[in-house]
């Protein structure tokens, strides 16, 4: 059976390699992919959309439908993670509290909890939790810069590598870093579960909404030039602005989905405690 598997793998691998021989050479200007639309994108993207970064123009304008459904894929990834993993939060068997002045950890059995507003105790995870003052302080210092950089990547996607997906991932990573260095409850306190779900659908809604707005303004779906009268600019600049709106939507969706997947995976769906 094992040898049969090896033979099949090599047979199909060989067929695939044989198939690649028919491909055009790397960077061949006569390749079918670069004969029809590519020259047009290269020559016209700047004058039609006033976006210097050709990749962004192709991604969010010429192939806007593709990117819209990519965003939907990410949205459904977050949603399926939620539906697969999220379980009902049961009261844990025991909670652990650390007395901050002395460092003694108390284990409180089922049902018991500290009175509200007790400041000398801090609830900790049931796995071993070190005193990580250095890591927390460093992350408090870094997270604002990471978030600022994420916004820069989103907003500067017109001119440099970047855009909604990358910026959204960086923004989500800032939240994940916060949840890792503090704990999951603190992270969820900053960006709650309901808010992440609202945000990831809001991101897709912004993208599709910009497209639908073009439809209402008597043009094609996702034809940003139709937004010109609303924005008060010429159609070329309107396409540039339309790309920005869409990128913002993508950024919001990706950020929220990143954090939702992290919280569900790290806490095995209980959203209670974890990494």
């Amino acid at each position, binding site marked *: 059976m094992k040898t049969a598997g090896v033979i099949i793998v090599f047979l199909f691998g060989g067929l695939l390699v044989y198939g690649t021989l028919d491909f055009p050479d790397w960077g061949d200007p006569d390749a079918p992919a670069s004969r029809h639309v590519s020259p047009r994108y290269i020559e016209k993207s700047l004058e039609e959309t006033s976006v210097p970064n050709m990749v962004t123009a192709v991604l969010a304008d010429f192939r806007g439908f593709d990117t819209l459904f990519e965003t939907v894929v990410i949205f459904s990834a977050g949603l399926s993670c939620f539906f697969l993993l999220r379980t009902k939060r049961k009261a844990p068997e025991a909670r652990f509290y650390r007395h901050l002045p002395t460092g003694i950890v108390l284990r409180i059995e089922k049902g018991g909890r500290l009175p509200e507003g007790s400041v000398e105790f801090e609830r900790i995870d049931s796995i*071993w939790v*070190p005193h*990580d003052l*250095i*890591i927390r302080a*460093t992350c408090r*210092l*870094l997270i604002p*810069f990471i978030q600022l950089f994420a916004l820069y990547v989103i907003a500067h996607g017109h001119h440099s590598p970047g855009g909604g997906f990358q910026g959204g991932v960086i923004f989500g990573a800032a939240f994940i870093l916060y949840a890792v260095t503090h704990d999951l409850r603190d992270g969820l306190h900053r960006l709650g579960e309901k808010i992440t779900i609202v945000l990831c659908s809001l991101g897709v809604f912004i993208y599709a909404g910009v497209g639908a707005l073009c439809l209402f303004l008597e043009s094609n779906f996702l034809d940003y030039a139709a937004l010109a009268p609303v924005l008060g600019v010429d159609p070329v600049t309107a396409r540039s602005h339309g790309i920005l709106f869409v990128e913002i939507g993508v950024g919001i969706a990706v950020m929220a989905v990143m954090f939702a997947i992290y919280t569900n995976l790290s806490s095995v769906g209980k959203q209670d405690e974890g990494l």
Partner: protein
Amino acid sequence: MDLLVTFFLVCGLVIFTGGAVGILRFPDFYSRLHPAGKLDTMGLFMSMIAAALFTFKAFSLDAVLTGLKILLILVFVFITSPTATHAIVDAGVRANLMPWTKTEKRDAA
């Protein structure tokens, strides 16, 4: 100026090489972290200084801004690299990993 850039670059590369050898050759987890931490700080310091000097050579506003951004990389790496090393050591302690000793008696632990 070119001489200075080359000098810093070579210094950085020497430190990187030494660090890489150290990561491979040191006996245990904690001592391997020592060259790993050194790489990020001193090696990157030298090579980034070289890169910044190289951009400063064409003295214009753009070049100065680019150089400052390169120096900003240094600032962030200087903050994060020691913290990362600290966190990794914490993880090692948490996994009950004993430091290596010459007697090799405690390896079984």
